[in-house]
């Protein structure tokens, strides 16, 4: 093996060993000390991050991509499944990003969860979540990818339902799994089609063999899978519900694991999609719809975590739009930059929530910039990066996406929706800043406000650096695979900025009106539409559920099983046989005289007739 590829594969091996070590260390009968979480888990992730820089440097320096196939896991005559890892642009860049973000989140969690008696278990779950995500990212094989895919799903079930004494948390947890499972049907469709028609789940072979095939059906499955995992329109309600989990979970779930898995899958499979206009248009429209719809939902939420959650959903929609534009690399770039500032936004809100005695309502915050200056400025920085302020992390990806969208001939409707959503980003970001940081305090007195803890400051600081420079670093080191658009008219170039600024100005103008009542009767319908999440959960979570549960009870159980099948099966047998049985047994009542009389009569009769 070539020495550099040897180094790459062995460093991956070291990363996985480091990450699995804490899990192995818990396999004793003695419970671990409470410092286990930071000494073992956090340090292992930190070390893994350091090591993961090595393949990154090798990749940047030499542009080396490699695939290692280690073990033939199983094979059925001609179909074999191997343990196979892929180191290409995507996995080599994503692994350090995920590890870096997780490292910060874990450090933050050691402060946020310190009063939890089973904090070690929480860290263990987070670590398993991360491992599942890394399996998904590095796999070169659909089956292996599926393991990571379901792994993040089930770990999110455990983490969202962390406070399992609460009914809400359990509902949110099962919601996440059920929505993801709908997506999994799509992935199973894709895998079944690929297995039957291309006879291989290895990605390289798939791409090669699929060239002259009509892939619309399996790719629709793939889009469905991504819709479930990445909470695109239709399967999105689980994402805001997932805010029931502890804040570090939300941070990890929304930044670098789980929700980006769907988009990542599409990026991985982009060689199959690029020549299929049907699928691309589907992705484009689905993404545009998602980004606008969730941005609208974010506008009137009052829960700080819900706003950030909806902004994630909106950004995921934007990533889907990028996939639809056939620019997977840009989508990937947005995943990476988004991870930094989204994790930071969640950590900041976690810190604020903790400081204000577990208060999540932004109407009961305010004036925080004097009390928690560092957290507040980071929150502002994150919001700015999210809106795509020039030269912060979000700018490099978001601006490029909108530019390539402006110059493409694909779909003006999708473009319009995306631009509106982009301006809404500015609105809801401003809303957070306005309500939480600016103005006067509206919270109870005697809140335990304290951000002077290393475990709070350091992770947010690291992520803040990431939100400032990550975009520049990644874009300047990533070789574009597709030709970037070099020239365009000024208005197209400035479109993203202009709509953002328009959104900002409008929002400021409207914020000025918060203290006045302009209309006697406020306009209720648009507000309710946004605040009630487009009435989507109230319809979808009731009607189909009610119908299927009633089908289960009334039709399947009572009508068919307990009535019809009983009636035409066992009951019918007994009712049909009973008359015969009673007739026969009624005849035999021990009336010997009658029997003898009958016998004699018939006997004599035959005798008479015969003689």
């Amino acid at each position: 093996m070539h020495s550099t590829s040897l180094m790459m594969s062995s460093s991956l091996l070291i990363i996985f060993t480091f990450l699995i070590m804490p899990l192995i260390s818990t396999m004793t009968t003695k419970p671990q000390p409470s410092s286990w979480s930071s000494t073992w888990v956090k340090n292992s992730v930190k070390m893994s991050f350091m090591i993961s820089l090595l393949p990154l440097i090798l990749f940047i320096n030499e542009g080396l991509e490699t695939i290692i196939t280690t073990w033939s896991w199983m094979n059925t005559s001609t179909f074999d499944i191997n343990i196979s890892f892929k180191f290409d642009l995507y996995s080599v860049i994503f692994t350090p990003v995920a590890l870096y973000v997780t490292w910060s989140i874990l450090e933050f969690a050691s402060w946020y969860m310190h009063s939890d008696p089973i904090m070690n278990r929480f860290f263990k779950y987070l670590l398993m979540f991360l491992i599942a995500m890394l399996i998904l990212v590095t796999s070169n094989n659909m089956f292996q990818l599926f393991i990571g895919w379901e792994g993040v799903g089930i770990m999110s079930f455990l983490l969202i339902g962390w406070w399992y004494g609460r009914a809400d948390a359990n509902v949110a947890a099962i919601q996440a799994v059920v929505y993801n499972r709908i997506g999994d049907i799509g992935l199973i469709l894709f895998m079944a089609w690929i297995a039957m028609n291309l006879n291989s789940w290895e990605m390289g072979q798939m791409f090669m063999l699929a060239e002259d095939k009509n892939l619309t059906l399996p790719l629709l499955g793939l889009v469905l899978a991504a819709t479930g995992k990445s909470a695109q329109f239709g399967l999105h309600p689980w994402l805001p519900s997932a805010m029931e989990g502890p804040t570090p979970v939300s941070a990890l779930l929304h930044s670098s694991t789980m929700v980006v898995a769907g988009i990542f899958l599409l990026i991985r499979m982009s060689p199959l999609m690029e020549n299929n206009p049907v699928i691309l248009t589907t992705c484009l429209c689905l993404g545009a719809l998602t980004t606008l719809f969730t941005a609208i939902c974010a506008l009137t939420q009052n829960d700080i975590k819900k706003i950030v959650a909806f902004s994630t959903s909106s950004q995921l929609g934007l990533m889907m739009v990028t996939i639809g534009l056939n620019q997977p690399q840009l989508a990937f770039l947005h995943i990476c930059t988004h991870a930094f500032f989204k994790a930071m936004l969640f950590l900041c809100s976690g810190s604020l929530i903790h400081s204000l005695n577990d208060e999540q309502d932004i109407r009961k915050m305010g004036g925080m910039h004097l009390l928690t200056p560092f957290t507040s400025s980071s929150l502002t920085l994150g919001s700015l990066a999210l809106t795509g302020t020039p030269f912060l992390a979000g700018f490099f990806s978001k601006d490029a996406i909108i530019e390539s969208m402006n110059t493409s001939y694909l779909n003006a409707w999708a473009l319009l929706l995306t631009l509106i959503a982009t301006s809404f980003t500015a609105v809801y970001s401003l809303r957070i800043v306005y309500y939480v940081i600016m103005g006067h305090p509206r919270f109870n007195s005697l809140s335990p406000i304290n951000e002077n803890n290393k475990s709070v400051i350091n992770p947010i600081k690291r992520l803040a650096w990431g939100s400032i420079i990550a975009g520049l670093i990644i874009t300047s080191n990533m070789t574009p695979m597709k030709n970037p658009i070099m020239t365009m008219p000024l208005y197209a170039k400035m479109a993203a900025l202009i709509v953002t600024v328009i959104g900002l100005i409008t929002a400021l103008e409207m914020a000025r009106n918060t203290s006045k009542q302009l209309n006697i009767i406020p306009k209720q319908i648009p507000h309710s539409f946004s605040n009630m999440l487009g009435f989507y959960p109230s319809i979808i979570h009731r009607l189909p559920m009610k119908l299927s549960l009633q089908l289960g009870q009334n039709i399947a159980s009572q009508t068919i099983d307990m009535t019809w099948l009983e009636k035409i099966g066992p009951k019918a047998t007994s009712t049909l046989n009973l008359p015969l049985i009673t007739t026969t047994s009624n005849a035999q009542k021990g009336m010997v005289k009658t029997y003898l009389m009958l016998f004699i009569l018939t006997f004599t009769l035959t005798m008479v007739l015969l003689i």
Partner: protein
Amino acid sequence: MLKILIPTIMLIPTTWLTPKKWLWPSTLTHSLIIALFTLNWLTWPSETAWSNFNGFMATDPLSTPLLILTCWLLPLMILASQNHTTNDPLNRQRMYISLLTSLQVFLILAFSATELIMFYVMFEATLIPTLLIITRWGNQTERLNAGTYFLFYTLAGSLPLLVALLMLQNKTGSLSMLTLQFSCPLNLTYLSDKMWWAGCLLAFLVKMPLYGVHLWLPKAHVEAPIAGSMILAAVLLKLGGYGMMRLMNILEPLSKQLSYPFMILALWGVIMTGLICLRQNDLKSLIAYSSVSHMGLVTTGILIQTPWGFTGALVLMIAHGLTSSALFCLANTNYERTHSRTMVLARGLQMALPLMATWWFTASLANMALPPLPNLMGELMIISSLFNWSPWTLVLTGLGTLITAAYSLYLFLTTQRGPLTNHLLHMEPSHSREHLIMTLHLTPLILLILKPELLWGWIF
């Protein structure tokens, strides 16, 4: 073969002659040693499918996993029954173990038979100990009704099989499985031939059970004692799948068209029984209906008759055997503490029995087929081969996986999560015996991930 069979038969005198103190430990060890020796069958010395011959018995890659599962389950059943029989008189305990052992003898003979008629006889013989276990050791009076259902559904289905087999003997002159696939294809054209085809499969479809003739299964499961539920879910249902796989290749020219309605019925059953599971509040009934749902998938996998269909069916049978048996054990641990099968009466158990919650979680995940457990491999193979036959089946199978996930997690959430109810506060702690049962159930399942070829039947 005899080196497993004779020790198993000798387990019966062991049961009756060992002193009271050593009854349970010695039978457990004895059966566990037998189970470990059966692993030897996994080596196939020759390229031909059959090995370990004697006059009437042999093993091949199809029967071996089922045989090992049978033998593996006896020690687990003995472990699981230990608690609820403690108040029985000694001789009744001995009788109970003897019945379980005799069931294993019959099952070994059934799975390893090389003559179809011997398979048939043993297939029927397993009914006797099972019936006794259900009707004698069940808990409620409904057990008698359940026993009747169990017996008559199975008998009514299998008598046509006897006639069909005798006719086959008449036509081909042999019922040996070794040679049957080489005999010249039958010329099946008339209506009576179609009835013969149905007669051959009906017994197994009832045993599987196919949706529509499944009523006996939830009743039997609910009323049976724990060992009865375990063996019923883990092995007895699989007799049906095994028999179908054996008979499929001689039914060839007719199966192509005649199997369609059965496949659709089975797939429809996956959805319907899944929906019933969503509304169950009886723990054992839920697990029983989930068995019907999984076995529906197995039925279609066998009827589709592709290599992947067969392999997937076999993998899913073994994986489901271990999983559902594990779930029944867990239900029993709840039952022994709350004395009720009602789910709402046993909530929030994670607070009281945290390690049990881990087992519940793992078993629920296995039930909803999480990769890379063999359950998923089986389901994925069956779904793929069905998808290749008709893409529309994916609507049914996909909905089936969705519903399975929903009720598996509903089961887990209802029993384990949420606040602990007050009447459970003085609950008995979990025993290492119970943890051992769960370990012995789930370890094989997890180890099989590493070498799934062991379950792959003829293609490997």
